[in-house]
């Protein structure tokens, strides 16, 4: 398993080096100068930096690529631009502003300008206060769960973008487009990471 992991890691980093200038620019800048090198379709530059910082904290680079390595921030912008209607877009904009207002009152600055420890505290608070998704069956939610807050929704979109990126879907998770058979009871060790499809 380790060997397999190592191979996957090598592959992902090679890809990141080629396609990930946004990551490099983030790494090279200090936190107050975080900037992006792509043009958002919906988000303002400040909002895009906010989204990039949040998703990087949720899914940082470890021995596997992080959210920014696979351009989750760009994907989220695209989702807001192309999938959300005007009402949804306004909501996103208001919620980012509100998140920053809360950070100002709690810690004295906008989220991206906080110290790392305050950023962690801000996300911890968001985790506790943004609700949870209910269970779903065949595409429909069941029960009557409360709608989730903005942070949970952002996190979910980040996971969607991350796990459906080609790099993670093909090289990090277990990718098997044509399984050929169903085996209903395997040891998890035989599989390792979860199936990507």
């Amino acid at each position: 398993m380790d060997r397999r992991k190592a191979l996957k890691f090598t592959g992902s980093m090679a890809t990141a080096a080629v396609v990930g200038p946004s990551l490099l620019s983030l790494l090279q800048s200090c936190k107050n100068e975080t900037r992006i090198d792509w043009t958002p379709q919906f988000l303002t530059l400040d909002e895009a930096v906010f989204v990039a910082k949040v998703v990087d904290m949720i899914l940082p680079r470890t021995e596997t690529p992080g959210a920014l390595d696979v351009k989750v921030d760009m994907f989220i912008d695209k989702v807001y631009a192309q999938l959300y209607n005007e009402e949804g877009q306004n909501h996103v904009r208001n919620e980012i502003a509100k998140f920053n207002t809360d950070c100002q009152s709690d810690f004295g600055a906008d989220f991206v300008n906080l110290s790392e420890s305050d950023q962690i505290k801000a996300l911890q608070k968001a985790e506790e206060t943004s609700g949870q998704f209910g269970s779903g069956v065949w595409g429909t939610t069941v029960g009557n769960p409360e709608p989730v807050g903005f942070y949970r929704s952002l996190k979910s979109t980040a996971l969607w973008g991350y796990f459906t990126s080609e790099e993670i879907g093909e090289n990090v998770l277990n990718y098997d487009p044509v399984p050929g058979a169903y085996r209903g009871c395997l040891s998890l060790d035989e599989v390792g990471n979860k199936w990507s499809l």
Partner: protein
Amino acid sequence: MPNYNIDADPKHTYDAIVIGSGISGGWAAKELCEKGLKTLVLERGPVVEHLVDYKTANLDPWDMELRGALTPEEQKKHYKAIRSGFIGKDTELFFANDEENPYTEEKPFLWIRGHQMGGRSLLWGKQTYRWSEMDFEANAKDGHGVDWPIRYKDLEPWYTYVEKFAGISGEALGLPQLPDSHFLPPMELNCVEKDIKKRIERDFPGRHMIIGRVAHLTEPLNGRGQCQYRNRCSRGCPYGAYFSSNAVTLPAANATGNLTFRPYSIVQSIMYDESTGKASGVRIIDAETNEDIEYKAKIIFCNASTLSTTQILLNSTSNRFPEGMGNDSGELGHNLMDHTYRVGAIGKVEGFDDKYYSGRRPNGIYIPRYWNIDENSKSDKFLRGFGYQGGAYRMGNSEAANRQEFGGDYKDSIMKPGPWEFFITGFAECLPYHDNKVYLNKEVTDKWGQPTLTIDCEYKENELAQNKQIQEDAVEMLEKAGVKNVLGFDNKHEPGYGVHEMGTARMGRDPKTSVLNGTNQVHGAKNVFVTDGACMTSNSCVNPSLTYMAITARAANHAVEELKKMNI
């Protein structure tokens, strides 16, 4: 497979016309062609040739713009069907355009349609169960609706016949309420399902939990490949492993040389000839050119799908049938039924964290009906009964998003599968009510200026009482089986969500109270056959498609016999 002959000749009188090419239309085409009839199939939408036209079949999420989500424009195009929750970029090409094909909901009703070669046989759930003797006797016994003019024994040989060609996988149980089919090997239950099955069957005598019986090949059949466990069925199967008209019946019909398949043919009405007392042909509008064309035939099979079939009959007026073809009884359009949907229970399963599965099984578990099957199982709260579908799996993104964690350790942990979850969701039989109905709406027209349908249908006391029981039983079974954090649910979905709409041109023994006779012939126009969901006199609690196949094969056989005897 070869290309289809799409050149239909209006000057020619065909032996048979089949309206629609979904599950029942495909079977009608196959049977009629194989019995030597020159058959014209009229399809409202485009050709979807097996293999060739499954354009999304091999796309991964990252191959699709927006990873498979629908844009607002695409959502608008499917603004009604999207309620179902199972339409995405990969499958939207097989869902009808709701804007071009409007319908009116007098009461909420979800009408899912597939306007292309193969119809909804490309999209269906593939759950295939025989109906039982108690289903065909139900109306006669409790007095709801009218008596079926057939019994299980009339269909039994036809079930066998269609099963051997369609290919049904499953496990024989010998239950009277769920007769066994001729089975290919069953799919496997996973570890958690096996454990829950044991507990439910131990703690609830008379209840069974089995792997779903499905129209998926678990071994090759007639040149079709077996299931490869991709679970991308609704995009069209590159192996022809599940039953669809496209992969199975239409190629068989085409192989006879007797088939003409005309796409983009919107059937406006069936023409009635007063001098012969029979239908003479079909009037269509070419969906691309808007041209009106008439085609003639000796017999007509109307298989446009339940409500579309009835829409065509209602629109087929004449001096003889001023209120729609076959509507002497006034029952045409009435007695609409569906199965109740999305009522059940769900929860987490502990103790199997080191277990996983491989392959994406396009199937789940099934719990056959156990209420009202004998004296001991009689309910004093409701008539008839329900079954459950469900399954166990390891959870994905929404569970990962719910965890109150972030950062490197969190990210590494969600590379592993989430906790196990198990659910069951019931499907209850709906009684046939005269006032659950559809009727023509001339105020709202479709893209081609044709009148549309208004649907006026609701679940009533007996269905709601069953839903209550479904939820109570589901919670009880899951809790007893050791499932944790059990949540009972009732989404209170309107009819249509089950996508098992049935009735509106029912079979019966008496022309005064039914639209069709016991061999699916329209009362008063004996050369017109209706063998899709419209013909159903009651709706059981099990999935209907296998019964449509059997009824169609039986009726086609009868039609050819009658034609030979010059009776029609």
